[in-house]
């Protein structure tokens, strides 16, 4: 692991100018369900990879009483164009509540936190990693089309478990100290140390295409 990393550092070093931006998470395909309800387009997508039921550490973290935060960045795209049609961030918290002696899944919507409780951890996790009929756009923002001709749309979802708040990071602390050389050195070291993960787990998917049926 360390050996591989080191070689990786050297490769990164060779590509110094593009550092920091070159790296992206691999995007995989995942099937989502889309539907039009009233005047909004809704999506249902499940990302069980975000909290695997075999990940002992993640499970222990949920049991500890500290909230596990899931952040979903949902972006809607039109096929063939590079412009995004809509963007939304959904925050979900899952954790054990010692008062209720239950698992709590809280979702931050437009109105505030929405809370569900579960006695089963598995059920709670399933609820947390599933975006259930979330609104991704207003119907008016999309152009209606046909199965043959489109226009087709798809969404990309960047989901992170316990994303790092930039404010808490060591580099932010160094920046606050105001030593420019130290910031520069820290930046270099962190880039070489393999850019610190943005989150405990990152899942980046793009969905299947859909089109909006004419009414």
């Amino acid at each position, binding site marked *: 692991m360390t050996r591989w990393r080191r070689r990786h550092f050297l490769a990164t070093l060779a590509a110094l100018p593009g550092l920091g931006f070159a790296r992206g998470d691999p995007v995989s395909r995942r099937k989502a369900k889309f539907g039009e309800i009233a005047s909004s387009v809704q999506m249902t997508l499940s990302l069980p990879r975000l909290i695997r039921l075999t990940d002992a550490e993640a499970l222990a973290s949920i049991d500890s009483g*500290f909230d596990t935060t899931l952040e979903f960045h949902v972006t809607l795209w039109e096929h063939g164009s590079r412009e995004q049609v809509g963007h939304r961030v959904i925050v979900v918290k899952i954790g054990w509540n*010692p008062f209720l002696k239950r698992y709590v899944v809280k979702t931050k919507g437009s109105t505030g936190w929405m809370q569900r409780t579960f006695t089963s951890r598995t059920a709670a996790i399933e609820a947390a990693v599933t975006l259930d009929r979330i609104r991704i756009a207003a119907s008016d923002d999309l152009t209606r089309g046909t199965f043959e001709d489109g226009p087709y749309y798809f969404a990309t979802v960047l989901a992170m478990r316990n994303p790092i708040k930039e404010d*808490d990071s060591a580099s932010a602390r160094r920046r606050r100290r105001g030593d420019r050389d130290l910031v520069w050195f820290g930046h270099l070291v962190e880039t070489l140390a393999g850019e610190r993960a943005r989150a405990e787990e990152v899942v980046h998917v793009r969905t299947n295409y859909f089109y909006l049926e004419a009414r």
Partner: protein
Amino acid sequence: MKVTSRFVVPKMRVPWWGRLETRIIAALVLLGTLCVGASVYLVRLSVAYFDTRVGDALDSARELAEGIEAFHDGLVSAQVAAFEARTAALAATLPGATEDVEPSLRAQLTASPDVAEIEMLGADGVLVRVRDPNSAEVPLEAGVDAFETQIALPGERGQLRVVYRLDPEIDARYQRLGDQLREIGREEDSRADVEDAVTLVTTVASVLVLLGSMFAGFVVARTTTRRVSELSRVMTRVGQGELTARSQTSSEDEVGQLARAFNHMLDELAAAQQKVAYLQRIGAWQGMARRIAHEIKNPLTPIQLAVQQLRDKDPGGDPRFSKMLATSVEIVEDEIEGLRRMVASFSQFAKVPEVRPAPVSLSRVLEEFERAYGHLSDDETGTLEVRPPKHDVEIEADRQLLKQALVNLVENAVLSAREHRRDGIRVEIHTSSLADAVDIVVDDNGPGIDEARRERVFEPYETTRAEGTGLGLAIVKKVVLDHAGEIWIEDSPLGGARFVLRLPRLKAPTSRRITGA
């Protein structure tokens, strides 16, 4: 002048590993690698040192957080137990009559500020609910800012539900602790990587510095060695007989000094070679002059006697013939006289004796010369001025020959000046002392000598005068060279030629004593 001497020069190709440049660079690389290695090792040590300290700190932070976790659990259980006990107590004190329940609940609500809501569902299906008006607007979030207890009333009287208000700050603080704990975990996970990266950054930086200084060293070494090899190339060329080759280095450092010393040595060498060649040439001329003089001198006397006899025995029968004879005899005698003079100067040249040097003071030589030859130009048309040195110097010289040389020079000066002007001829002799030599300077106000002829006039038989032989200056130069001196011609401030004779000074013990005193 062709130089025929040839030194045996070893082949100058140095293999690359033997070159100064390579060695300097190798030394630089070795030193640099050593430095970089040492600094990387030290960095690794210090990183490891701080790593253990940070590791300890992280461990205790983690322990602390885990302790707080357990503490929080305990706190929550205790609080829950307390809430449940309070609800049970409330249930016990509830009045039996349903219509009395509401005021009692309301009293409870005002008495305990952390109760948000009390609700009683009687067995008869009557619901009594009292609520704290302050918290009515915002729905409370169960588990975060509210806790709900529910028990069955004793005697099957129904259900009692009490909602207690929790301080949301407790949960918020606890969640912040969780964030910090996660940060600690991440810090621990990335420690090894960060450690590696720090070492790598330091290594790369050190290697860059090393490369930079190696490049600088390379440039410095390159310039130095290039000048050294330029010098060695010049030396090779000189060794192969190209005596005019000189190093072009102009720097002031040791290499430049070496190059200048080398150039100086070559100059001296060339001068010495020219002297030797000149003396060889004069020697050859002298040999020839001696033979010519000998061959011509011997028949001259018989010829003269025969011609005189011819004139004496003239019967005088025919006056025309007598006159012709007399004229012829006169011509022959004239020519014989001329030949005699030539033979005399030839044999004088041929017989220029070996220099027999002896320590002598310069002023004595000049005095003797003035006494014996001062009349040379002391007629009404000109003056000869001899200025003896202010501080007398000793030289190792042959007095007679040195005086002869001065005579030749003064004679030339007078004759040349006389060709140039009617009267006002001036010839001046003065001296000037140097550290290890003394100059005798002869100035005149004659026509001077062109730059181009200044070497040539010293060659034997080089003359512009009708009755000159061109040997005068050749003799002078031979004498000077035999004294280990030098002679050259300059422009004279008097307007004519200046001859400078530079003779080495004698390092006499007397003079040394004088300077020492």
